[in-house]
């Protein structure tokens, strides 16, 4: 297609605490001209987590990262899947530290020419992230610590 040999614009950012919902996804004019689909995925902290096969209420999640490996792996995977799916631009942002209930801990924004490639990118990139990128979460239970 018209965009086959383009280099994808990949940005990765680690953020202390929750990610603001209005984090901008800035495209250049030439990127905008081609971007027929822009997909945003937010991972948010829910109010419960599994503890020994049971859902228990939490205050939030404590995220740990291992720099510079976390950023390197996020960038490597984003770049790999961006090339595979002919992505125009992708922003990846992940929290470290404490993120409370209902707040955003992960934001993925991607622009492509066509819908299907944006959706497939999101799906495959997140699968890869969850099995390859060193990011850990530890629940902060809202009741007296049940795992101590």
């Amino acid at each position, binding site marked *: 297609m018209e965009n086959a040999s383009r280099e994808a614009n990949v940005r990765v950012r680690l953020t202390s605490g929750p990610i603001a919902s209005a984090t901008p996804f800035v495209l250049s004019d030439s990127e905008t001209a081609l971007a027929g689909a822009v997909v945003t995925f937010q*991972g948010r902290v829910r109010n419960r987590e599994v503890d020994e096969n049971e859902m228990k209420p939490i205050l939030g999640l404590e995220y740990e990262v291992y720099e510079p490996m976390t950023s*390197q792996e996020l960038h490597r995977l984003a770049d790999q899947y961006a090339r595979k799916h002919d992505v125009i631009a992708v922003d990846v942002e992940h929290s470290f530290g404490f993120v409370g209930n209902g707040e955003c801990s992960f934001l993925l924004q991607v622009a492509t020419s066509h819908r299907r490639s944006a959706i497939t990118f999101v799906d495959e990139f997140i699968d890869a992230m969850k099995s390859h990128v060193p990011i850990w979460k530890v629940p902060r239970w809202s009741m007296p610590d049940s795992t101590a």
Partner: protein
Amino acid sequence: MQPVSSRTNRSTGELQVLVFGPQAKLIGCDRLILSDVNFPVRVDELMPMLIHHYPDLSASIGVSRLAVNHEFAAADSLINAGDEVALVGLISGG
């Protein structure tokens, strides 16, 4: 895959392995310490040593990988004294 480091000087000493998240919580500290390790040590030789010294990790070590100097290391990679080693298990980004 090639050995992570080209240095293969033989020596004996302590090896620290960084540990994170639920695994760190489980053992109550953020690094595993093995003394009297004979360097270089292969990744697939190190894993049983970790389980031996930290039996609480035996349940999760099967889904863990070692990173050496911030890159995932193959089973036959060699770890040298001074390499930064991390146990990457029970990850859950997103």
